[in-house]
C-alpha cells in the first residue's frame, strides 16, 4: 500500500492507517523537534501536538503538497511557539555579515560526515554549535538543508519571504560552519 492509499484509509476513519502514518513520520518529526527545542520533554510534547493536529485535520488534507511538507509546517510552528516562550536563553547576534565570513579562518577539516554516527564527543560538538544558533535561523537551516524543502516551501512553512529565507540560511550555514571549524580545523 502506498502513502496516498494509507492517507485515504485514514481519512475514512481507519485508525490502523493513522497509526501507520504516525510510524512513518514519528522519527523525522521527533528528530526535527529535538534539534529545534533542544530538550527531550519539549521535543516529545511538540511531536504529540503535531500528530494531534494531523489526526484532527487529516480529512482536510487535500494531497496538493506532500504529507511530509505539511507535517514540517505544523511541527515548525509548534517548535517556534515553544522556543519563543523561553526567553531566558541569550543567542549570538548574526547581524554582522563581515564577522560571519572570516577569510583568515579557512582550513581543511579533519572530519568527514561518515565519522559522525555513534560518536558522543562529536555529537556534543554538534549540539553545542546548534544550541548557539538562534531558533529562527535553526529552523530555516533544518527545513531547507536537512529536510530538503525548497526555499519557497520553507518560506511558506514559517511565513517568511524567499529573500528572508535565503538571508537566514546564508547566516545559519556560515555560523555553524564557523563553530564546527573551531573543532574540526587542521590548523587549530
Amino acid at each position: 500500500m502506498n502513502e496516498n492509499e494509507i492517507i485515504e484509509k485514514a481519512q475514512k476513519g481507519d485508525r490502523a492507517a493513522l497509526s501507520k502514518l504516525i510510524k512513518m513520520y514519528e522519527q523525522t518529526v521527533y528528530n526535527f523537534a529535538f534539534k529545534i527545542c533542544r530538550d527531550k520533554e519539549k521535543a516529545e510534547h511538540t511531536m504529540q501536538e503535531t500528530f494531534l493536529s494531523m489526526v484532527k485535520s487529516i480529512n482536510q488534507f487535500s494531497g496538493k503538497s506532500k504529507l511530509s511538507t505539511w507535517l514540517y509546517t505544523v511541527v515548525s510552528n509548534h517548535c517556534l511557539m515553544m522556543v519563543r516562550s523561553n526567553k531566558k536563553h541569550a543567542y549570538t547576534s548574526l547581524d554582522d555579515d563581515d564577522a560571519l565570513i572570516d577569510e583568515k579562518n579557512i582550513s581543511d577539516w579533519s572530519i568527514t560526515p561518515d565519522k559522525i554516527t555513534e560518536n558522543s564527543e562529536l555529537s556534543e560538538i554538534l549540539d553545542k554549535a546548534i544550541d548557539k544558533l538562534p531558533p529562527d535561523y535553526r529552523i530555516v537551516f533544518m527545513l531547507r538543508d536537512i529536510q530538503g524543502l525548497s526555499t519557497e516551501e520553507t518560506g511558506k512553512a514559517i511565513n517568511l519571504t524567499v529573500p528572508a529565507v535565503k538571508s537566514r540560511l546564508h547566516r545559519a550555514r556560515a555560523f555553524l560552519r564557523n563553530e564546527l571549524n573551531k573543532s574540526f580545523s587542521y590548523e587549530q
Partner: protein
Amino acid sequence: MNNDHIIKCKEVMNHICDTLGEDLNSPTCTSIKKHLDNCPSCQKYYNSISQTIQIYKKYEVKITSETHLKLLDFLGLDDCE
C-alpha cells in the same frame, strides 16, 4: 594576494553560502565555479560549508520505544500497536 583578490574571495564565499544546493547555471555562478577551480582557499570554504550540512544530516536523534508508546497513548491509538 592583492586586495582585488581578497574582495573576490569574500564574494565567492558569500555566494557559496547563498547558493549551495541551488541552480548554478547563471552567469554569476559560472564565474564563481571558475574561481573555485583555481582558488584553494575558496575550495576549502566550499568543502567546509558542504561538510557542515552533511554532518548535520547524518546526526539523527533517535526516538525511543517509550516515547513512541507515549505518543500512541496520547493520541488514543495504543490499541493499534
